[in-house]
């Protein structure tokens, strides 16, 4: 599998990240909470990684419930 098969979603706060995690869990959308990769941001927090092809399920699942800052391909 190549690197670009995943993307990460970054949020403003840990609270937003973990709220998003709860929502994705509730909807059984596969994902993983990981430390923010250093090459993406100097932030010391965590973000959510999921496979690229789930992006069209992740965004609607979170819409109106929790805002994210950006999505980056890995």
């Amino acid at each position, binding site marked *: 599998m190549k690197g670009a098969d995943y993307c990460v979603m970054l949020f*403003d*706060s840990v*609270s937003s990240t*973990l709220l998003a995690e709860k929502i994705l869990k509730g909807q059984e959308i596969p994902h993983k909470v990981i430390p923010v990769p250093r090459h993406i*941001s100097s932030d*010391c*927090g965590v973000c959510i990684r999921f496979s690229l092809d789930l992006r069209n399920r992740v965004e609607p699942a979170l819409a109106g419930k*929790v805002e994210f800052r950006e999505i980056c391909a890995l």
Partner: protein
Amino acid sequence: MKKTVYLDNAATSWPKPPGMMEAMVEYNRFIGASPGRSGHTRSVDAGRVLIDARQAVAKLFGVPDVLRVIFTKNATEALNIVISGLLGEGGHAVVTGMEHNSVMRPLNAARSRGADFSVVRCSGGGELDPGDAVPLIRRDTRLIVITHASNVTGTIMPVAEIAAIARERGIPLCVDAAQTAGAVPIDIEAMHIDLLAFTGHKSLYGPQGTGGLVIGGGLEHAIGPLMHGGTGSRSEFEVQPDFLPDKYESGTPNTIGIAGLHAGIGFVSGVGIDAVRRHEKSLTARLLERLESIDGVRVYGVKDPDRQTAVVSFAVDGMSPSDVSFALDEEYGVMSRPGLHCAPSAHKAIGTFPEGTVRFSAGFFTTREDIDYAADAVAAIAARGRKGAGK
């Protein structure tokens, strides 16, 4: 036989549900890390403890957006955030005559910086006529603060009516729910509450050192934080983030306490606030009936279990509240709170300033037997007081 009867639940509830204490032990044993400060498993788990607790609070008060629940160390901190945030060096607030010093002292501090406030007079029973608030509202009124229930008389205040007045004029309404969160149903949307200050260690059965603020949509732009510092987010910037909840939550939080608070809320939700309220109403009815039948005892407030929390203030003729409270404790093991209860303006309203009253406050774990035992003790002390007074 001397029992131990704790009737000071309005100060802090006791006993606490065993599950609350277990949750704190579990947290420290199995998680214990700093929430969200590092990316490792237990740091993330600690972050999950906070978000789970936030969700429980949001559900309890009908808050649609979980991130609008801010944790503080108590209701006092939440009230300080609101008052010092909305009243800077100017502006005006309207408050009721039944407020606690956690409202009055920050207001007076704001006044010394150039802000001002007006107090809506309350009746001798501690009641507020909402219409009396209207003429006090000025063009520069930025905030209305109302306690949901008095910690002196238990009187439940007309929040919905005051909310309607505030809304009509676009003034934010802050409700001090220290005495009611967990004991009386609260729905911030239905009640149109913009800012809700609550404490965790009273009727939510959490540990001391927990509480919070629910902040209504948009108000975070008008209210600055009390403290600035590390949040674990946007660490590359040396200025405070402006998003919720981080804006108001600097420094390592009381995660262990919040784990306990979540379990306390779980306990209250499990029993059901309606069931808690029913139990406390029946205890209040019994307490009022017993105390009012004792010669030489004066009971204050509305004296109606439907219109008050499980708080009853009384005085014994010929004795100071502190002597009565001391005798109750020393001779009967009944723990009460004498004096002014951090609420001098409420005591002025009911005519008991500066001596104050003796306050009994029941909780979910109080029994009818406890109430009868405490009332018997008051009767015995009052009889002695009458003899002492030569009657």
